[in-house]
């Protein structure tokens, strides 16, 4: 059955809800990143649980939905955790998504201490063996899905390596071998070209364009001479021009999706989103009008120069991940990556990503640390934690690990016990669905309210207090608090 034509849409975040509810003419499709709505539980049989209230709100939106995975990429040699598949299938069914997609990347590796997460989507080995590994991983997921499956062309901050398959040839070979669709992320390809990799036009010349069902566009930013896929604002003019040239060549295009992170959404504003989507709708009207290039492009796979390196896809993943996360590795690929400046960029991005997660999940604790010891103290604590503990896929797990690290390290910061205990209890209340009690040696309001305003608590009222933190039904990750005190 042919896939439905959906039109121009946007990645879902709750802040977009007013726009999505009111302006169905502007937003034709909503793309959902399912794992952002999941929590990780201690149940080994069903480790992933959905946020039901968030799902209800999504289902109530009038637009068609697409499902675009962000947590279980399919570009590596190790297939993603199969325990995520039942919930993924449930969400596809519930949202009525006509197709689903994931990233042609990897985010897990192995080292001396066992398997670990990379904290970032990383590029797979572009070799014939890498093609076979990715295709097997894709098929392992696609076989369980009730709808067609596509993979997204990834960003790659590493320099091209001698002998590797070109970016276009690699994606083409994987898509053909796995018989899947392609989510053509134009911003990723554009960033890759700006960072020294294959030209976008050359990538497109090698792709089976009839497999492109969906296009992603986004804004980015500069960092240390690299153009980053930051999803940080409006689509740059040159990329819009590129989209205008390319969309007419995509005979099976079904959707164009604008990507922006929630952090930057507050800066662009809903009016900015409206303007962007309006522009993209004009570009959309040009789709598939001249698919001549789709028919004349497509070089024979044998024409792609490539050779097998002296390490396997798994060794590549382990070596690159170890470089990026800062862990030891005996992989031959580890040594080969020593001089690639892109590794340092990735390492910094992972540091920032992990710090962002902690600031998000343990906001008051991080404020207290920052106010007490300034940037040097926070950086020292983050550095120590990141060195001692690899990244975690789920923010709640990362937060709990940092809480445990602080508990072990015991920095001399007044009120840290109370503030950290309060925030850990709030997370547990949401995850476990039941109230948590937190003891305070001071009036909680006199501690927490100054921190919330960005101030250190001054002379908080001492006493015996307990805060009962209770999950709030129907609210996304909200908890209510009540106090029990003796003063």
């Amino acid at each position, binding site marked *: 059955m042919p896939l439905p034509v959906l039109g121009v849409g946007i990645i879902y975040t*709750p*802040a977009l809800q007013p726009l999505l509810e009111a302006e169905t003419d502007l937003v034709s499709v909503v793309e959902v*990143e399912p794992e952002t*709505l*999941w*929590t990780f539980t201690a149940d080994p049989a069903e480790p992933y649980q959905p946020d039901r209230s968030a799902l209800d709100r999504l289902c109530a939106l009038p637009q068609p939905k697409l499902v675009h995975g962000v947590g279980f990429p399919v570009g590596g040699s190790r297939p993603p955790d199969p325990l995520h598949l039942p919930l993924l299938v449930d969400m596809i069914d519930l949202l009525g998504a006509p197709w689903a997609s994931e*990233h042609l990347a990897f985010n897990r590796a192995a080292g001396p201490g066992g398997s670990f997460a990379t904290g*970032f*989507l990383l590029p797979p080995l572009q070799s014939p063996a890498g093609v076979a590994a990715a295709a097997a991983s894709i098929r392992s997921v696609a076989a369980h899905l009730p709808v067609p499956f596509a993979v997204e062309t990834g960003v790659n*901050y590493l320099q091209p390596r001698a002998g590797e398959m070109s970016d276009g040839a690699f994606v083409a070979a994987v898509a053909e071998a796995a018989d899947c669709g392609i989510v053509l992320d134009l911003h990723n390809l554009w960033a890759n070209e700006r960072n020294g990799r294959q030209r976008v036009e050359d990538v497109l010349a090698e792709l089976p364009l009839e497999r492109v069902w969906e296009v992603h566009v*986004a804004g980015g*930013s500069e960092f240390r001479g690299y153009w*980053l*896929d*930051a*999803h*940080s604002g409006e689509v740059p003019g040159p990329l819009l021009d590129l989209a205008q040239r390319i969309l007419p060549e995509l005979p099976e295009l079904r959707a164009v999706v604008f990507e922006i*992170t*929630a*952090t930057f*959404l507050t800066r662009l504003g809903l009016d900015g989103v409206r303007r962007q989507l309006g522009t993209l709708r004009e570009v959309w009207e040009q789709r598939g009008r001249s698919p001549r290039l789709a028919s004349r492009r497509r070089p024979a796979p044998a024409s792609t120069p490539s050779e097998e390196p002296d390490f396997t896809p798994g060794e590549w993943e382990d070596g690159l991940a170890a470089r990026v996360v800062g862990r030891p590795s005996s992989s031959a690929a580890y040594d080969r990556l020593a001089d690639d400046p892109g590794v340092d960029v990735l390492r*910094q*991005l992972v540091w*920032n*990503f992990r710090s*962002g*997660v902690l*600031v*998000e*999940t343990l*906001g008051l604790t*991080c*404020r207290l640390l*920052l106010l007490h010891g300034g940037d040097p103290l926070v950086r020292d604590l983050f550095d120590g934690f990141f060195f001692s503990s690899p990244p975690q896929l789920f*923010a*709640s797990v990362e*937060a709990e690990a940092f809480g445990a690290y*602080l*508990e072990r390290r015991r920095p001399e910061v007044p009120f840290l*016990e109370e503030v*950290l*205990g309060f*925030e850990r209890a*709030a997370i547990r209340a949401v995850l476990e669905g039941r109230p948590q009690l*937190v*003891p305070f*040696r001071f009036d909680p309001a006199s501690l927490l309210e100054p921190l*919330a*305003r*960005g101030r*250190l608590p001054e002379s908080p009222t001492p006493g*015996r207090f*307990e805060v009962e933190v209770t999950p709030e039904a129907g609210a*996304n*990750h*909200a908890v*209510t*608090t*009540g*106090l029990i005190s003796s003063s």
Partner: protein
Amino acid sequence: MALNDRSLFESLASSAGPVVRVSIPTSVSHNFDAMQRVTKQVLGQLGCEACHSGFDIRYDVLREFIADEKGNLRTPSAR
């Protein structure tokens, strides 16, 4: 005092004095200010992070939030 919640709780519970329940109007734990509230509503706080491969600015946003108009952190010495 250990950071462990339970040990702190038990220590407090063993001390003398009556316990009185107090209600406060604050209904949401992270509801103490606009910045925190917006962020909590916008982002999937506990799940996987949304997809992007760029520079995460949330730590910088926090630093800006608690810096005063002169760029100094709001520590006691800066006030």
